[in-house]
Every structure is written in structure tokens, then in C-alpha cells.
């Protein structure tokens, strides 16, 4: 197989994955947010929560459709472009993807119809259950996908016999060392995304003073959750970082531009900013804090952090500056969310129910509107760190990426890649056009909850 085909296959995977992940992160969190809102409606019987449920579910529906269709190429690409990988890892990896399809994806799809179109056809309680199942389905989906991906990072519980992979312990393979951090860090990233989107869109209306009584509700719910989730996410990110230094030293060293292993009894120095250069096997320049990397990477003063120079060049990740700065962007955004959330909570306390005083906080609202793209950037950067940082391996230590690709002609790959790229442009453009219209129309404040359904509905009326 040619090098060109390998690069194209990697490019295609990167493109598909970068595009796909934008949507499920919002589906996971927005369905969870809708579950909260709908529960509030069922508990308090306040119609405003019902209207919130109807308003935000329109955004979910638009987002959901693109998420579903962009996920299909992800699954089938393993077979088309990465045949040897599929053949080798199917015993575990394929099995887990099968679980995802059957347990999670189907649950989500089986109830999303009721969630979106079932108003008035089912009692309140059943509708709430459907919303809960969509939220559960999307979260389970993230769980299984992260189990599969974390196993590629730290493949435990398997053995290679005669070139064939066999699962020796499902317990160890599923609960591989990276799994707990991978699952939680990703799930919290998804939650943060939806909450920032809800906060940002609510802030947009508050900024414009359109329906402030309505949007102050969603803004507050999102912020109260974020004030808790943002700090936890920083802790999760830190813990998964420590895990990376232990299980994938090459990735750890690469994201920190760390070249020399520190001598025993000394701390490794940390570069705050640098430009790592693989050809030179060192940093072109760097701004260092002595001893700090041992503290960050091992949570001890003199913990040993392996430098890239002690890892064979053939086993070092590529594109070091990308890894280095993607990691910094992700971490920086994580901290920014915590600061923004705490600032907002402070403003809530200061204005204490005084609507006018709150609405005067224009800078705060503007900050949240501008924050809308940030969780997406952070998630993409996190995935770049995770996937590019694992190179040159596709399954760490077991299978090299160069041995994992199908023998497909470069023309076929570039052809399909161009076709998908064109589709993605159309999808994202249309999404923005429709989302903008949704934003302009705003919520319907005349909606009243449907009456409990008649016992036998035999006709399905069209709603316009």
C-alpha cells in the first residue's frame, strides 16, 4: 500500500471525525438539559418550562439529524479504509461498536420520534421517559465509543496468538487504564458544550433584551450546572494527564515539548510556551518553569517524566507543534469556562433577583455569546491530542497505523473524500441557515401544553 493512500486514509478519517464529533456532543448535553427542563415542568407544572422544552428541542432536532448521518461514515470507514485494522481488532473493537449500535444508538433512535413528535399523543410521564431514554442513549453511546477508543490508547485484556488478537479478559479490556478518564473527560466535555451553547444563546436574547424573563431561566439553569461541571472537568483533565504520562509517555512528552528525562532527585522543567522541532530533537525556543512538569505530570516534586529523546524517533508522535498548541488551547478554554461561570455566579449574587440590574450586565452576556464556539474548539483540540498523540500507533504498542490501512487506490479515497467534504459544507451551511432562523423566530410564548391524549387515537393528524 502506498504512502499516499495511507496519508489520504488518515486525512479522510480526520475529516470525518472532526466533522462528526461537532454534533453528538450537543446531542448528549442538550438532551440532558431537556431532561432537566422537562422534569422541572412535570414537577412544578409551570408552563414556561414546557415552552423551554419545545424551544430547545427544535435545535436538538436540527443537530440530531446531522449527527446521525455524519456518524454513518465513521462506522463504515473502519471497514473500507482500515480493513487490516478491522480484521485485527474486530474481536474486541468491533464487538464494542456492536454494543454501541444495539444498546445506545437504537435506544436514542427508538425514542427520539416520541420525544419530537409525541407531544399530545402520550401522557406527560411517558414523554418524560422518552426524553430520558434519548439522553441515556446518547450518553451510553459516548460510553461505548470511549471504551473502544480508550482501548486503542491502552489495549489491555487481549493477547496476540499467531498474529490474531484474542480477548483474554473482557473486564480488563473494557476497564482498561485509560477508560475511566477517557469516558468521564469526554462526557463532561459534551456536557460543557451544551451548557455553554444554552448559556450563550440565552445570553444573546438577554443581551438584546428579547424575552428576558423567559431566557433568564435557561441561563440560570445552565450556569448553575456549569459552575459545578467546569471545575470538575479541570480536575478530570488533570487526572487524565497524569494517566497519559504513565501509560503513553511519548504522548505526554510530546504535548509538553519535553525532551530530556529528569535525573533522579530533580524535577522536570515545564515549558509554558515553546516550539518543539522533531528534526532537531529539541525545542527551537521555550519559556520554562523549573521543576513544574514533575508536579503537573506526576503530582510529585521529583517524579520522573520521560523525555522524547529517550523514545526512539520511530515511536515519537508526528506534528509536535500541533499537539503542543492543541493541548494548550484545550486546557486554556477549560479554565476560561470556570472563570466565566464563577464570574456569572458572582453577578447573580450581586444582582439578587433584580432583573434590571442583571440585564445591565451587557459584558457578561457578550462574553457568553462569544464563548459559544469555544467548547467545540476545545473538543476538537482534545481529540487531536488524543489521536495524533497516539501515533505512530493505531492500537498503542500493538498495531502501527501504517500496517492498518486498506489497499485502496488513492484516486478512490480522494474521490470519496471530496464528495464527503462537499456534503459537509452543504450540511453545516444549511444547519446554520436553519439555526439562524430558529434564533430569529425565538420561542413561542403562546404555546400551551397539550391535553392528556384521548384513549384511542386512530388518526395521525399532520401538524404544521
Amino acid at each position, binding site marked *: 500500500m502506498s504512502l499516499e493512500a495511507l496519508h489520504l486514509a488518515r486525512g479522510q478519517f480526520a475529516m470525518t471525525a472532526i466533522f462528526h464529533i461537532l454534533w453528538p456532543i450537543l446531542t448528549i448535553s442538550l438532551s440532558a438539559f431537556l431532561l432537566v427542563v422537562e422534569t422541572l415542568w412535570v414537577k412544578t407544572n409551570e408552563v414556561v418550562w414546557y415552552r423551554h422544552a419545545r424551544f430547545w428541542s427544535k435545535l436538538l432536532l*436540527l443537530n*440530531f*439529524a*446531522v449527527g*446521525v*448521518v*455524519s456518524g*454513518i*461514515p465513521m*462506522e*463504515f470507514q*473502519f*471497514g*473500507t479504509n482500515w*480493513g*487490516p485494522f*478491522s*480484521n485485527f481488532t*474486530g*474481536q*474486541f*473493537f*468491533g*464487538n464494542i*461498536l*456492536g*454494543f454501541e*449500535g*444495539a*444498546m445506545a*444508538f*437504537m435506544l436514542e*433512535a*427508538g*425514542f*427520539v*420520534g*416520541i420525544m419530537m*413528535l409525541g407531544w399530545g*399523543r402520550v401522557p406527560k410521564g411517558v414523554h418524560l421517559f422518552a426524553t430520558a431514554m434519548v439522553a441515556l442513549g446518547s450518553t451510553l453511546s459516548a460510553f461505548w465509543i470511549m471504551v473502544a477508543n480508550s482501548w486503542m490508547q491502552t489495549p489491555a485484556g487481549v493477547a496476540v496468538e499467531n498474529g*490474531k488478537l*484474542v*480477548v*483474554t479478559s*473482557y473486564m480488563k479490556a473494557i476497564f482498561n487504564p485509560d477508560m475511566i478518564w477517557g469516558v468521564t473527560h469526554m462526557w463532561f466535555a459534551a456536557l460543557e458544550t451544551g451548557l455553554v451553547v444554552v448559556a450563550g444563546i440565552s445570553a444573546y436574547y438577554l443581551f438584546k433584551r428579547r424575552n428576558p424573563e423567559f431566557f433568564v431561566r435557561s441561563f440560570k439553569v445552565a450556569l448553575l450546572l456549569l459552575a459545578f461541571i467546569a471545575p470538575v472537568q479541570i480536575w478530570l483533565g488533570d487526572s487524565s494527564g497524569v494517566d497519559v504520562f504513565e501509560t503513553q509517555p511519548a504522548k505526554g512528552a510530546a504535548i509538553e515539548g519535553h525532551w530530556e528525562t529528569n535525573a533522579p532527585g530533580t524535577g522536570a522543567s515545564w515549558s509554558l510556551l515553546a516550539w518543539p522541532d522533531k528534526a532537531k530533537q529539541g525545542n527551537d525556543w521555550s519559556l520554562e518553569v523549573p521543576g513544574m512538569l514533575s508536579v503537573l505530570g506526576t503530582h510529585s516534586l521529583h517524579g520522573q517524566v520521560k523525555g522524547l529523546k529517550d523514545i526512539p524517533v520511530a515511536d515519537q508522535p508526528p506534528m509536535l507543534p500541533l499537539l503542543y498548541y492543541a493541548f494548550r488551547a484545550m486546557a486554556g478554554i477549560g479554565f476560561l469556562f470556570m472563570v466565566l461561570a464563577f464570574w456569572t455566579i458572582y453577578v447573580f449574587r450581586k444582582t439578587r433577583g433584580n432583573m434590571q440590574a442583571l440585564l445591565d450586565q451587557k459584558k457578561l452576556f457578550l462574553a457568553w455569546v462569544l464563548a459559544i464556539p469555544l467548547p467545540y474548539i476545545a473538543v476538537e483540540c482534545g481529540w487531536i491530542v488524543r489521536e495524533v498523540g497516539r501515533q505512530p500507533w493505531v492500537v498503542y504498542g500493538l498495531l502501527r497505523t501504517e500496517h492498518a490501512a*486498506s*489497499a*485502496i487506490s488513492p484516486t*478512490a479515497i480522494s474521490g*470519496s473524500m471530496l464528495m*464527503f467534504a462537499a456534503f459537509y459544507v452543504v*450540511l453545516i451551511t*444549511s444547519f446554520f441557515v*436553519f439555526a439562524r*432562523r430558529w434564533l430569529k423566530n425565538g420561542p413561542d410564548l403562546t404555546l400551551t401544553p397539550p391535553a392528556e391524549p384521548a384513549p384511542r387515537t*386512530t*388518526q*395521525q*393528524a*399532520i401538524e404544521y
Partner: protein
Amino acid sequence: MNAVTTQELLSNAWFGIIGLMLVFYVVTDGFDLGVGILTLFRRDESDRDVMIQSIGHVWDANETWLVALGGALFGAFPAAYSLLLTQLYVPVMLLIASLIMRGASIEFRHAAHRSKRVWDAVFGIGSLLTAICQGIVLGKVLTGLVPGVDSAAFIAITAIGVVSGYSLLGATWLIKKTTGAIEDASRRYATYAVFTTVIAAIVVSLGTVKITTVGVTRWDDVGVFHVLLALAVLAAAAFVYILYAIRMRGEHSPFIASMVLFVVSFAGLAISLFPYIVPGQLSIASAASDGTTLVFMLFGIGIVFPVMIGYNLFQYHLFRGKVVPIKH
């Protein structure tokens, strides 16, 4: 029982489960793809509204059978997953593209105003292309991925067969779910579609005997031919009954009989392929995962399978009845 037979039992069980998932996929997504194809024949936007409304709540779950099927094949038969998708690169990529087109357009059309016509066209064409690509995949598998003029002709017929079969399911679904002019037109579409489906099925069967290894080897096995003959009789009965039910203005019976026709055809297909996944190239035994994996998957997927069917049926039950436009 010794280890070899347990492995055989497990891999055959998985061949059966995946076959069942394929039947669910083909029947359920088949009718909504068929409805999509038939929207191409309706000029009025309000007609298309009714037709698309009739599948709006289920198309996504129907398509999910394909995702579940893909995952199950990947885990249980990694070698088949890898071989098939690599060899079928172009039709699979086009299939995915078509699924993207129709999946996005069915949701976007609701949000669209002026561009609704365009999204409807994309939805119809996407549905048609999806069916064609699936027909190509079927034809390629049956001909054992062997290229050639004969194979190409055979593949053209399987593509026509799948398009007509899905149109039949779609038309009979619309008979069940619509009223008035659309229902009447659907009875006409169903009549045409059942003829082209059956003709294509007969040609495919003859072609299978003539040009594929399936016809040459598998159909000669003891008992196989008799079973296939029995299935053919059943299919013929379903065919006659569909025509009768359409004429007698049956509401549900044409759809049920069409599903029977599909299930019977698929049973025939599964029996013909067994014990191969790709005839002459890859057997069930050599493609299967290790026993540990197959057992673990059986626990995971086997347990949720009935639950999946349960909530899918609930969804159908909830949205039962005909779609009736109400003018505001």
C-alpha cells in the same frame, strides 16, 4: 460438546442473528426508502408532506438497524467486515453518501421554506440511490465479488430488484397510512412494483444458477433445493395475495403480504449463502471471531435484542392510524 462444535454453533448463531437484523433492516428501512422513491412521482408538495409524515417518526430507528448490523458484523465476523467493505469501497461510499442526503433532507425540509422543493428532490433521489447501492452490494456479494460482464448484468438486475422491492414495501405502507388520492395512487404503484419485483427475483434466481458459484455448488446440496422450492411456492402465493389484496382494497394486508414476500426471499438468500458469507471466498467459520467474543456479544446484544424490538413496536403502535392533513 467439544470446542470445535461450540465454535461452530456460536458462529452459525451469529450468522442467524445478523441475518435477522438484515431482515429487520431491509423490511423497515425498505418501506421508508420506498416511500422516498415514490415521493419522486408526486408533484404536489402537500402529497409529499403526507407521505413523509407517515415515516417521520420511524425512519431514523429503521436506519439504525443498519448501524447495529454493521457493528455486529464487525465484532462477530471481522474478516467479512473488512473484506466486504474494502472490496465494495465505491458502492459503500456512495451508499453512505445517499443515506446522508436523505437523512439530512428529511429533517431539513421541515425547517425550510423556499428551499423545501429542493430538499424533497434530494430526499427522493437520495432514497433511490440508497436502494440502487444496496442492490449493487447484494449483486456483488452473490457473484462472489468476481468482476466481469455477466456479473455486471446480474448486478444491474439485483439493483432493479431492490428498487422495485422497496417501492413495493413503500407503496403498500402508504396504502396503510394514507387516504384519498395518495392511497389510490399507491395501489397503482404497488401493482407495478410487485410485477417488476417478482420478475427481477425470477431473473436473479435464474442468473444465480447460471453464473454464480452459489447456484453451481450450494443449490446441489442435499435438501437445499427442496427448501428453496418450498420458499418459491410461498413467494408465489404471497405475490398472488398481494395483487388480490390491492384489488380488494385491503388496508393492512398488502403491506403484510409484501413483508412476507421479502422475508421469504431473504430466507432463500441466507440458505443459498450458507455456509459462506461471501460465496467461494469467505466461509462463516473462517470469518468468525473467537468463541469468547461471540459469547460475550451474545450476552450483550442477545439480551437487548428483544428490548430493541419492543420499543420499536411501541413506536409503531403509538403512531398508528392514517395520516390525515388538517387545515388550520
